[in-house]
């Protein structure tokens, strides 16, 4: 009886895992087969025409890159500061450190649509920017700060205690220790946290829906006030919801494939770093 039970358990869990693997494979297969039909140099370098039925997705890609770059610039300083504050500046295991850690984990799970509405309150309501790329960039930046900060903090906590003591023993101030030991040795974790965050930011639609993205007519912004961008996720969102002419369907799949590739690149780049950190975390 024991043998049969073992086989049954292995089979059920195995088939579930196989199912998940199959699902991932199927999604990739669908995206690649349907999307590659539209992919061509022209598709990536021309602007959209006839509401998505023809032309390329140049400005959508450019817009997404602008949003992601802005998000990185906005998020980096805050993620660094929050990570170092939680893991080192606040006494470890003290109440403030634990509370900050808890807040960061909550912020990580705030629905992105609430960020979109937060943008309406701040940028449209208070600052009266109308649709602006900067508003979108800031919101996406706010979204990825917790992810990067938590990864940085975990890495700092696993840094070798000896080096920190030795540096303090020399009379180095906390600022020196941050610059000379903590940052250099945890930069990899911060970078991979940022990359994971940026990968998610590139694919988000909800935060940019109200304050940053338009469907047509925008190219490279030349200011802040009333300067929206096109964005790949928003382009797909509008096309998916609205038009179904045969021509725009292939372009729609093409845009989807480009977005998934764009999103997977930073995530893939982060994998080698995360393995290194994972091993380091195990040995520390």
């Amino acid at each position, binding site marked *: 009886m024991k043998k049969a039970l073992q086989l049954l358990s292995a089979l059920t869990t195995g088939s579930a895992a196989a199912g998940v693997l199959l699902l991932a494979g199927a999604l990739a297969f669908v995206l690649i087969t349907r999307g590659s039909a539209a992919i061509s140099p022209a598709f990536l370098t021309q602007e959209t025409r006839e509401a998505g039925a023809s032309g390329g997705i140049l400005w959508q890609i450019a817009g997404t890159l602008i949003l992601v770059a802005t998000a990185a610039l906005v998020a980096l300083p805050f993620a660094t500061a929050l990570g170092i504050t939680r893991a080192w500046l606040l*006494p*470890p*295991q*003290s109440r403030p450190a634990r509370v900050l850690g808890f807040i960061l984990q909550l912020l990580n799970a705030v629905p992105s649509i609430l960020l979109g509405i937060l943008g309406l309150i701040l940028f449209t309501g208070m600052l009266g920017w109308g649709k602006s790329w900067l508003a979108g960039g800031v919101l996406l930046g706010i979204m990825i700060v917790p992810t990067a900060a938590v990864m940085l903090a975990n890495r700092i906590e696993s840094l070798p205690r*000896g*080096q920190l*003591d*030795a*540096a*303090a*023993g*020399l*009379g*180095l*101030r906390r600022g*020196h220790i941050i610059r*000379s*030991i903590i940052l250099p*040795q945890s930069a990899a974790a911060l970078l991979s946290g940022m990359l994971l965050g940026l990968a998610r930011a590139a694919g988000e639609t909800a935060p940019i829906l109200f304050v940053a993205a338009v469907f047509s007519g925008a190219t490279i912004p030349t200011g802040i006030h009333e300067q929206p961008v096109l964005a790949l996720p928003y382009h797909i969102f509008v096309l998916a919801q609205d038009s179904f002419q045969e021509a725009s369907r292939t372009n729609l799949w093409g845009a989807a494939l480009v977005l998934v590739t764009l999103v997977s690149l930073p995530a893939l780049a982060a994998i080698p770093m995360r393995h290194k950190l994972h091993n380091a975390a195990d040995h520390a």
Partner: protein
Amino acid sequence: MPDPILDIRDLTITARRRLILDRVSLQARRGQVLGIIGPSGVGKSTLLRAINRMLELQPGYRVKGEIRFHGHDIHDADVDPDTLRQRIGMIFQQPVVFPTTIAKNVLFGAARLRRLGKSERAALLDSSLREAALWHEVKDRLHDSALRLSIGQQQRLCLARALALDPEVILMDEPTSALDPKATEAIEERILAMKATRCVVLVTHNLDQARRVTDWVACLCADNGHGELRFSSFPRDGRASAMLSETSCWASSTPSSLRLFSSVSGGRRRLGRIAILSACSAG
């Protein structure tokens, strides 16, 4: 006798309601090597870390009593602990080398804490490595990674790194316990050389080393569960060295010696043994 650089009076340290050191008093002077000896776990390292306020970097420690540096209590509000640690250097049992070149390691503190020109930097590098007796072994590979040095060389590198800040006091926490005899001898020779211009506080549980290098020795014991100063004397003083070798507090914490100790303490035998074991394991 010159007035003491370090004057510790009734120092009492507790960690989360557990007493570790009870009313320890001792003094250290320039031109002298003060030895602190005793079984492991009696609080020698904790005492050392209290002197340059490294203890407050870990949560849960409370320090009472006075530690005077040049007659000025180091816990006064206007004392900057970082500047204090520049005046009181520290060498750990396990040498800790930063993952960078030998030169950058030596100047790791000085380059950041002093405004040094290029030539001053080279001069300081030269003098520190010489004072740590490491110059000849590394002078032509200063820009190699320090991680490739032997343990003994790494410990001397740490010494050079501390000396680069020209501290008045050097605290050494069992600096040779991880080293081979040749490296140990090199360190001990450096301690005797440094004695001329600096004050050295050496924590060790190597009796011969204490006899060889210290001018004055303080023996900490864990009589009733926490570290106490049993006595302090000249190491080579006949009476003191005899007491040194046979007093139980000095003996290493092997069970046999514990039984001997508990019989002497009479009635509190059971409590004594438990307290000792817990004290030892805490170290």
